[in-house]
C-alpha cells in the first residue's frame, strides 16, 4: 500500500467513525446522545474490564459529554445565524438512517469500508478541491495569516466568504486571538471538517509569536471554505459549532 493509499484508508476509517457516530447519535435516547463512538469490541472490552471497575461505577458515570448543563464554557462567541445557513459544494452527506438491527448487506461492490457511495464521493471531491490547486489554497492561507499578523481587519474582511456576512465580532476576535506574530511558515496538512451543510478546510501555519516577552512556536489553524471556486476565510470554526472531522490531506 503506497502512502497515498494509506492516507485514503485512514481518512475513510475516520469518516466511517464519524458516520457511525452520527448513526448512533440519531439512534439513541437524548441521555445517551453524548456517548462516544464505540465498537462492538469496545463494549466487549468493557465487560472484560469489570474487575477494575464496578458496574455501578459505569452506570453512575456516563461518558463525557453527557452533562454540559450549568457549566459556562471557557469562552463563547455570539452565534452567527447566517453562518449556519451556509451550504457548500460538495455538500456533506447526511448521516444515513439505518435500522441498526437489520443485517448488513454490503452488496457486490461494497469495498468494506462502511461508507455510502455519497460519503465516498464527498471524500473524493473534497480531496480534489484541496489537491487541484494547492498554491491557491496556500496563498489564501498566507494572506489571512499576513492580515492577522499586521492586524489589518480590512484585509481580513476582504478574505471573508461573502455568504457569511461581515462578521465584525469574529474578525475582531481573530485579530486578538494570538500574540504578536513575528514569523510564520505554512504547513502541508489540510484537515477537512464538516459543519452542517458546510465544509471547512483548515490549513495550518507554524508561527513564532512573542508573548510576555518570550518568543515561542505554535501551530495556528487557518479556517477556510471553498466558495465559488475560490478559497475564502470562514467563521465557522466557532467553538459553538460542532465540527466533524472528514479527512486530512497533505499538500
Amino acid at each position: 500500500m503506497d502512502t497515498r493509499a494509506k492516507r485514503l484508508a485512514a481518512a475513510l476509517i475516520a469518516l466511517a467513525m464519524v458516520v457511525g457516530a452520527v448513526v448512533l447519535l440519531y439512534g439513541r435516547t437524548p441521555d445517551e446522545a453524548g456517548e462516544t463512538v464505540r465498537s462492538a469490541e469496545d463494549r466487549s472490552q468493557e465487560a472484560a474490564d469489570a474487575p477494575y471497575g464496578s458496574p455501578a461505577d459505569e452506570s453512575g458515570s456516563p461518558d463525557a459529554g453527557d452533562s454540559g448543563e450549568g457549566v459556562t464554557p471557557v469562552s463563547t462567541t455570539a452565534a452567527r445565524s447566517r453562518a449556519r445557513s451556509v451550504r457548500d459544494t460538495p455538500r456533506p452527506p447526511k448521516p444515513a438512517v439505518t435500522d441498526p438491527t437489520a443485517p448488513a448487506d454490503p452488496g457486490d461492490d461494497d469495498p468494506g469500508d462502511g461508507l455510502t457511495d455519497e460519503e465516498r464521493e464527498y471524500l473524493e471531491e473534497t480531496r480534489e478541491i484541496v489537491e487541484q490547486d494547492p498554491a491557491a489554497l496556500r496563498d489564501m492561507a498566507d494572506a489571512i495569516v499576513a492580515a492577522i499578523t499586521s492586524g489589518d481587519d480590512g484585509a481580513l474582511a476582504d478574505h471573508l466568504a461573502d455568504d457569511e456576512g461581515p462578521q465584525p465580532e469574529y474578525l475582531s476576535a481573530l485579530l486578538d486571538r494570538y500574540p504578536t506574530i513575528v514569523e510564520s511558515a505554512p504547513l502541508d496538512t489540510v484537515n477537512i471538517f464538516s459543519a452542517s451543510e458546510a465544509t471547512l478546510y483548515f490549513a495550518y501555519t507554524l508561527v513564532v509569536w512573542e508573548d510576555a516577552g518570550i518568543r515561542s512556536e505554535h501551530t495556528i489553524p487557518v479556517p477556510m471554505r471553498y466558495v465559488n471556486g475560490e478559497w475564502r476565510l470562514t467563521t465557522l470554526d466557532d467553538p459553538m459549532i460542532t465540527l466533524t472531522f472528514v479527512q486530512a490531506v497533505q499538500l
Partner: protein
Amino acid sequence: MNANTLRESAQHRRRTRIGLAATAVALCSLLVSAPAMAATPSTPVLTDVYVSAAGQITITWNASTDAGGHSLTYDVYRLPQPITGSNVGPLVPVASVTTTSATVAALSAEVEQSYVWFYAVRAKETTTPATVSAVSKTMAANLHGYRLSSTAVTCTRCHSVHGAYPDDYDYTYVDLCYRCHGATSAASAVGARSSLNVQAEFGDYGGQAQPGSVHRSTKMETDRTECDACHSAHRTSYYYDNNGAYVASSSYRKMIRVQTGVDADGPTYTYYSQNADLETPAAAGENAAFCLACHGANAAPIGYVGDAGDYALTGGDHNSAGYSTAAHGPTILKSNDFGRPAQSEYPQVQCLACHAKHASAADKLIAYRGSDAGGAYAEAGLCYACHSAASAESKVAAGYVKPFAWNDRDVQAEFGRASTHPATSSATGRSLTCANCHNVHNVAEGGAAAWSLSRVSTPSNTKNTPSDMTAFCLDCHDGSPASATISDTALVPYRIGFSDQSTAPYFPGWDKSKVGADASLGFTNSGHYAASAANGKALCANCHDPHASDNVRLLAWFRPTGVTWIGGNSIAGDRSIGAGRGNTVPKAAEERLCYNCHGNGTATYPQAAGAADVYTPANPASGTNNKHVMTAYSGRHSDLEGASDLGSANRHSECVDCHDPHAARKVGGTATQDTLNTSAPGGAVYGAWGVKPDYANTVRDNTTNPGTYNWGTPTVFSSFRLSGAASDTEAYLCFKCHSGNSTRPAGQSDLALEFNPSNFSVHNVLGQSVGAQETFTHVASNAITYTETWQFPSVGVFRTSYDANTMLTCTSCHTSENAGDAKGPHGSTVQWLIDPNYPTDWKTSYLVANSSDQDGMNGQPICQKCHDLYSAAGVVGNSAHARPARHGNSSSIPCITCHIKVPHGWKRPRLLGYRGDDAAYATYNPAGALSEISANDNHLRDGSGTVQWDSGDCSTDFGGASGCGGGAHKDIAIGW
C-alpha cells in the same frame, strides 16, 4: 597694647623709617671704620649671626686692626638682650678665637626662644695685660622685630638704606625670607640662616618634588605676600628689653597675623601670637581663631590674602556647625603646644593638630601634629593616628583615651576586617574617606547610641547633617554618589565612588534607592522600611555596620527599636569589639541574620510582629527534597557570583539568592504573588535577580516533534532583575538555579526546558496570554507530519476561575500556605516544597468518582488546586477521565499512568507521557502505563463542552496482551 589689633604704618611710612634706620647704620659704620685708638684694637665689624644648624649659631665679623701690631683674639659674647659696652663687662665669652668667625652651641633656652639671643664680638690683644676693643654691634640669629637698641643690627639685614634692597630682594618677596629660611637645598634640615627650611616645605627649590598642598594663594603670589600674609617680619618671638627683662607683651611667638582691614594709614592687622596676651583668643588656651579668620564664617580676611574664589576653594566656613563644640573642638583635642613648657607663650593654633602650617605631602595641608610623614597621614591615615588602639596621642582633654571612638572601637582595625567601606579616595572606582561621612570640623561625639546622627554628615555636602540614618546611607546609595566638591557652601572632600561590578550578572547594585530605573522599588518603599512604627522598622543600622564587618557587605545585627516581638523573644545584637560582637557571630550572617526577625518566635530565632515566619517552613521536621537549603551551607553565596557559582560544588541557596532585602515588600497583604491569573513575581522577590531564557535559541532534542522549539532546551540566558514590571515572571528567579543556567544536581530537572512555551503542553508560569495549545504539528510513527486539533473541554478540567490560559507562578504550587508561615518555596512538609495543604503525592493519586472526592482525584494532590475533573456533581467531566473504573479507582492506576511524573511541561499535549519516555518523565511503568497515542486524530469539543476520546486512541498493555482497548487498539496504526 591693650587690643588685639595693632596697626602698622603704611608702606611709605615704613620706608621712611627704614631710610632713617639705614642712615643711622651708615653713620655708625663710619664711626666703626674710624682709626682705632692707639694700642687698642679696632672694633670688630659684626657681619652676620645665624643659625647654621639646629642648635648651633655661627657668628662672623671682619678682622680688627691693632696699631701695636699685636696678634688678636676675638671674644664672642651672648645675651638675651642687645649687648653693649655697658653690659658686656661681666660676660664670659662663649667663644675666643683668632679667626673671624665662630660657631657655638645655642643654649636650650635660646633654642626654645627661637634664637632671639644677641651676639657681639670684641677683639683682644694677646699681650698682658690685654687691651680690648670696643664691643661690636650686636646681632641675633633671629633678626626679626628688634629695633629699640641702636647697637642692634636688625633693619639693614633686610633693608637697604638708599633704595636698593639687599641682593635685589623685594622686601615682600618670598625670596627675601628664603635668604634665611631656605636657599640651601630641599634636603637640608635648616635654612641658610635659620632653623627653618621653609623653602623646602613649600617645594620652592628648582626640581624639587612638589608637596601635595601648600598654604599659598594665587593672590599671595601676585602680591608677593606669600609669607607676609600670615606673618609679620617686624615682630620678634621673644623680646628682651635693654635691661634683659623679658617683655611678653612685646613678644609674638610665631609672629602670625591676619590683615583684617585697611584704613587711611594702611593695612590693619590682627595678631594671634602675642605671648601670653590674655586678650587674644589664644589666651583661652586652645583656639583656631587665627585659621578661622580666613576659614571661618567671616570671609573678609581672605580677601586681603586670597583671590575671591580662594575662600570657596578651601571649603569656606570651617566653623559652619560650631567647631568649638565639635568632637574635634579645642576643649577635647588640644593643640601641638599643649603641655609643653611655657605653653602660654605659644599661639596654640589648634588646627595644627591635623594640618600643616605651610605645606604637606598630603592634600588639604593634612599633617598629624606637625608631621606629614611623607603623606602617610592623608585621608584615613590621619584619623588612624588617634582612632586606633595603637595611638600615641596624648594631647587631649582629661578622660579621653585611645582609640577615642564610640564604643572604644579601634577604627583602624575595623577597616581591616573582611568587608569594609573604602577608606581611601580614588580617581575612579571604589572611593571613600572618613571625611566623606564625617565632617571632622563639625561632628560631635554623639553619645552612647549607635548610628548617631550627630557623628555623621551628609556625604553629598558634609556641611549638612542628614535627616536620618537612612537618608545618610541613601545619600550615596542612590546611584549618584557625590563627586569631590569644595565650595563655600558645599564640601565633598573627596570623590565618592563604587567599585564596578557590572560584570557580575546578579549583583544587586550599589543603588538602594531604586531597582533599575524604578524608584518605587527603592529602600524607602520596601517592606523593611515601611513597617509600621508599632512594629518598628528594619533599617540600614539594623543589618549593617557602617565601617566594617567580618561578614560580607558590612552585615551586622543590631536590634531595631520599637518592635513588638512574638513571645517576647529577641536578640539584642551589639557592636562591641569583644567576642560578643554582633557582626562576627553567626547571628549576623546569611539566613541567621534574617531569622533575627523572621524566626519562629523562639529565643534562638525570634520573630518580629509583622515579619513572616520563614524559619518554620524552611526547616520542616522531616522529609527529603522539601526545603531550600539555606542552613546547609555558608560562605558559598556571593553577590558577585555568576551562573557557574550556582551549581556543582558551590550549590547553595541563601535568602539573598531569592530576595533583595532593600526592595522586597509585601503586595496586597501577602509577601508572595498569589493573585489569580498572573505569572508576575510577588513583592517579596522584587529586586532579586533571575535569568530569562532565550527560547528563540533553543536546542531541539526530540526529532519526533517537528516544532523547532517544542521541548527545546534553552542554552542562552540573560540576567533579569525582578521588579514587578509587565515583562517579569517569578519563574525567572527559579530558572537561575533550576535550569541550564547552572549545573544542577542529579535528579533536578531543567525548568527552562519544561516551561518552554513552545512545548505542546506546559503550565503557564511564563505569563503567556495564550496558555495551553490546541493545535499541534508532529511527525507520526509513519514519518508523516500531521497537524491535529485537540480542543480543550470546557467542562471537567478546571476549577472556577481557571482555564487553559490561566497564568500561574511557581509558588502557585511550591509554597507554604500554613497560617503564619512565609509564603513561597522556603520549605514544606510535602516533598518538592509543595503546598502542605495538598499533602497527597500526585504521583500516587488516582482518578476517583465519588461524592467525597468531587474533584475526581484521590486524596489531596496539588493538582486539585486548579483542576476539577468534575463537570457536575458526581460526574467526571470529560471523556478522557470519564471512566474511573478503567482509569482509576485504584492506586495501581495513578494519574501518572498517562501523565508524566514531573508535571511542569512536556513535548506532547496534556502532559501525556509514555512509559518508554525519558526515565525522568516516563509514566508509571507497570503494564497499565500509556505506551502510544493514536496520531492523525482530531479531538473536538462538542456542544456540551466535552471532548471525545475513545479507548482506541490510546494503547497500553493494561489487562494483558489485549491492551487497554483490546487487541485492535494495542498496536495503533499511526502512533504519535
